[in-house]
């Protein structure tokens, strides 16, 4: 029996601050265990939290980008549970009065997903269950991550397919990265997604019982996990069974979700307002400052690239969404005087090919600066070099870091556009290839291509092909 899924997503995004949310410890990833800690994030007796203002800046910005209402007053709360990597025995989060509510995010399909709320909270430490000689008997704890600032973004149950869920997650990442709120580094866990999934017989039926899939950190896995969960639930329902509300974990290796805990052993978190922190009051002026500081959102940037630069929507999206740093790179190239179209072609063509060869995706690995690429495209546009030569010049720029002009001058690569020199070459080619001339005159047009090739060859590739074409045509017509 076919079912219609109802999906809601909760995304935890690490805020891109230099220091933790309630103390001055660094948030750098990968430091030696427990070196980025202090009495506050270790939860030592007597230590107290102090809110990092910049974390609030970024949370406000996320709220604005997702078109939420950012509330003047929000309240931190203690979420009580025992776990070894939660040093205080409670997590400081926001509960009844979150920072922002009521936003929206548009999917690639144009569908709009409601954002229920965005709240601020601290991350826990990490339990290390594997990788040590005594891991069969002991769990080690690294509290470097304890107190890392997070926002949790909760969607309405508006998502209707696994693919849309992945698209939502991906769009969310694009936005958060574009506005400088999150570093987008999913492998390091900067962005994690929980999915609530339920099935119902049709779009008008009431919601079915949901299960929650925890902590998925890639778009692909999210889609797989939801697909699996939908199939699993359908199978249970088809067999006449009932879905139990529970939390499930997705296993990347098997592609399956497994039950983690049922509703019966769900925690009573005993939330209550955090007495160590005053209510967070965000003035209208503070919100306005963040609104002003907000970088252009990906959607707006794509539209501008199409309107102002004349790029195709496909190319604009490639730059804005697909190639990390691609849009910034193009803007720099354009600012350096390059044409948007030509530089886009290079970025999407040769540059991307070179990056791929180097095993990279992001423009930060591009050995040619935007200014240098603009200079190269200038030379081709003014017919100083042909596109064939330009590719060789580009290779040399990548390898040596030298500028396009310098390479062209030093190696004498500038193409010859002088009609006298080229006219002589054309005359020579016609004289040397009477058969081809005859064939051309008999109507075999590909003979013309052959003659052009011969002329280019005699000029060692440096001839301007347009001029060669014109001269050859004129000479043949005169014969």
């Amino acid at each position, binding site marked *: 029996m076919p079912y219609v899924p109802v999906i809601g997503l909760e995304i935890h995004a690490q805020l891109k601050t230099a220091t933790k949310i309630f103390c001055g410890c660094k948030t750098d990833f990968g430091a030696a265990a427990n070196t980025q800690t202090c*009495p506050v994030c*270790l*939860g*030592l*007796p*007597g*230590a*107290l*939290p*102090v*809110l990092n203002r910049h974390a609030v800046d970024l949370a406000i910005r996320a709220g604005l980008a997702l078109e939420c209402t950012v509330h003047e007053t929000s309240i931190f709360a*203690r979420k*009580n549970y*025992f776990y*070894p990597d939660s*040093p*205080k*025995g*409670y997590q400081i989060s926001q509960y009844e009065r979150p920072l922002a509510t009521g936003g929206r995010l548009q999917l690639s399909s144009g569908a709009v997903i409601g954002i229920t709320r965005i709240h601020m909270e601290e991350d826990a430490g990490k339990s290390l269950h594997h990788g040590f000689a005594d891991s069969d008997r002991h769990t080690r*704890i690294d509290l470097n991550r304890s107190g890392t600032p997070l926002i949790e973004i909760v969607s309405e149950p508006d998502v209707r397919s696994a693919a849309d869920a992945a698209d939502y997650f991906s769009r969310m990442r694009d936005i958060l990265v574009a506005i400088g709120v999150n570093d987008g580094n999913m492998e390091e866990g900067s962005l994690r997604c929980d999915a609530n999934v339920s099935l119902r017989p049709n779009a008008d039926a009431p919601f079915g019982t949901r299960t929650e899939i925890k902590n998925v950190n890639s778009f692909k896995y999210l889609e797989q996990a939801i697909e699996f969960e939908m199939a699993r639930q359908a199978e249970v329902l088809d067999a006449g069974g009932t879905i139990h509300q529970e939390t499930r974990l997705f296993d990347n290796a098997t592609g399956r979700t497994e039950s983690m805990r049922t509703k019966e052993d769900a925690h*009573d978190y*005993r*939330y*209550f307002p955090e*007495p*160590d*922190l*005053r209510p967070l009051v965000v003035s209208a002026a503070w919100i306005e400052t963040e609104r002003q500081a907000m970088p252009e959102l990906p959607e707006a940037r794509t539209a501008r690239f199409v309107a102002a630069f004349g790029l195709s929507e496909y190319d604009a999206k490639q730059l804005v969404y697909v190639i990390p740093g691609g849009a910034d790179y193009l803007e720099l190239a354009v600012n350096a005087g390059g044409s948007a179209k030509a530089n886009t072609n290079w970025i999407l063509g040769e540059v991307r090919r070179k990056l791929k060869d180097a095993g990279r995706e992001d423009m930060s690995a591009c050995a040619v600066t935007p200014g240098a690429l603009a200079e190269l495209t200038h030379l081709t546009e003014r017919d100083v070099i042909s596109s064939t030569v330009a590719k060789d010049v580009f290779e040399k720029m990548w390898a040596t870091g030298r500028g396009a002009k310098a390479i062209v001058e030093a190696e004498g690569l500038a193409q010859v556009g002088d009609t006298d020199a080229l006219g002589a070459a054309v005359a020579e080619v016609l004289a040397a290839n009477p058969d081809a001339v005859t064939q051309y005159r008999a109507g075999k047009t590909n003979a013309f291509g052959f003659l052009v090739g011969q002329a280019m060859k005699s000029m060692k590739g440096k001839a301007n092909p347009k001029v060669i074409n014109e001269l050859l045509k004129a000479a043949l017509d005169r014969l």
Partner: protein
Amino acid sequence: MAARETTIALRDSIARGERTATDACNAALATIDALDASGPALHAFQLVLADRARAKAAALDHAFAKDATLAGPLHGVPIALKDNIVVSGTIATAGSKMLEHFVSPYDATVVERLEAAGAVIIGKTTCDEFAMGSSTENSAYGPSKNPVDPSRIPGGSSGGSAVAVAAGMTTVALGSDTGGSIRQPAAMCGITGLKPTYGRVSRYGLIAYGSSLDQIGPFAGNARDAALVLEVIAGHDPHDSTSARRPVPSFAAAFTGSVADMRIGVPSRLLEQGVDPEVLSAFRDAIASLTTQGATIVDIELPHSRHAISAYYLIATAEASANLARFDGVRFGARVSGGSLTEMYDATRGRGFGAEVKRRIMLGTYVLSAGYYDAYYLKAQQVRTLIQRDFTAAFATVDTVLMPTSPVPAFRFGERVDDPLQMYLADVFTVSANLAGIPAISVPCGTTTTGLPIGMQFLGRAWDEATILCAADAWERIAARA
């Protein structure tokens, strides 16, 4: 007991070169030796920091010899700290087995401020476990004894600090007051104890009990010394978001020495029940003296105060249930191994905490639980708001509110320990100030026929410690003349 030397006199004698900080330190250590370890064995101190104190005193003397102008406002003054205030490199037990070997890697903000002012921390004092109690009988290391009558409790939870000052071991000490834990032992030991306005003194480094109620404050022999210590420890601390960005005035500068023209509110209806006749009698005598000296006594209503004890024990225990969750055996403090993680938690917390602490954790956990939160915790917060409004209304017509500190004088060991509810009711007059966040100072107002001290407290407007310190100082003069 002989008249106690004041902190200011002690400091000034060192500043005049009549003795050194080392002399004062050694004298304090000798008194502790005579009274605390032997003799009546008062057990005011959980830990005496003799070597550390001597080293600090010697450093102060050295610096003073080079440049006497650098002497701070507490130069050379030995001071005792309740054992729930952390001092870097030393053990802080908070009266609990859970922290028997816990060495703090950092200083409380009050410790930094005291030492910057030249005070010498002489030791850590006995307290009820995690400040939960009214007698020090809940200390896992044995109670302190009341120096007036060592068969009786000194009050609590900051009992050890009160004893240290009352017995003359130090001239000043710090305690913490969540529901009366400074004022009640001050009253029972016959000294002065001040709970500042919530947010006046940083709580950074105070092992938390009820975070929205806890305040650190001084014990002293008189109001002037209490004012001096408060000036040193008060003020905004970037490490405590609940500490206020407000200027700290010179409190003693506002002393007038007189209660003339002062309007004093007395909630007489609250005194109708449950107050020991001798306490009531001493309190009425005090009111008569104040009237004679020109104060205007105004009968006031604090209609919601009868719910204060209930609200207090819901809010304080709710906060405590979360505050004490960090004592789980994982990172610091005691750990009792168990087969599984849950067994380790159970064994560690089961053995590490005493009965009263467990009782309050359970109570607090219960009131925050799903289905009970609205009926208990939320209701208690609403009552708290009403109590705050009662005081706001009262302070519209009076300068200070006066009431007994404790309904009873010091009781005997074991007398109430098996009856938690009776013990809780002893806090009836003190918890309102914590719930309202306002300052209150307990001062001696006579003794029972058997010589047990009786205390009364002046409560003030938020941030107006100046008025109640002034009233306390004036009262001392009145009492001295009587």
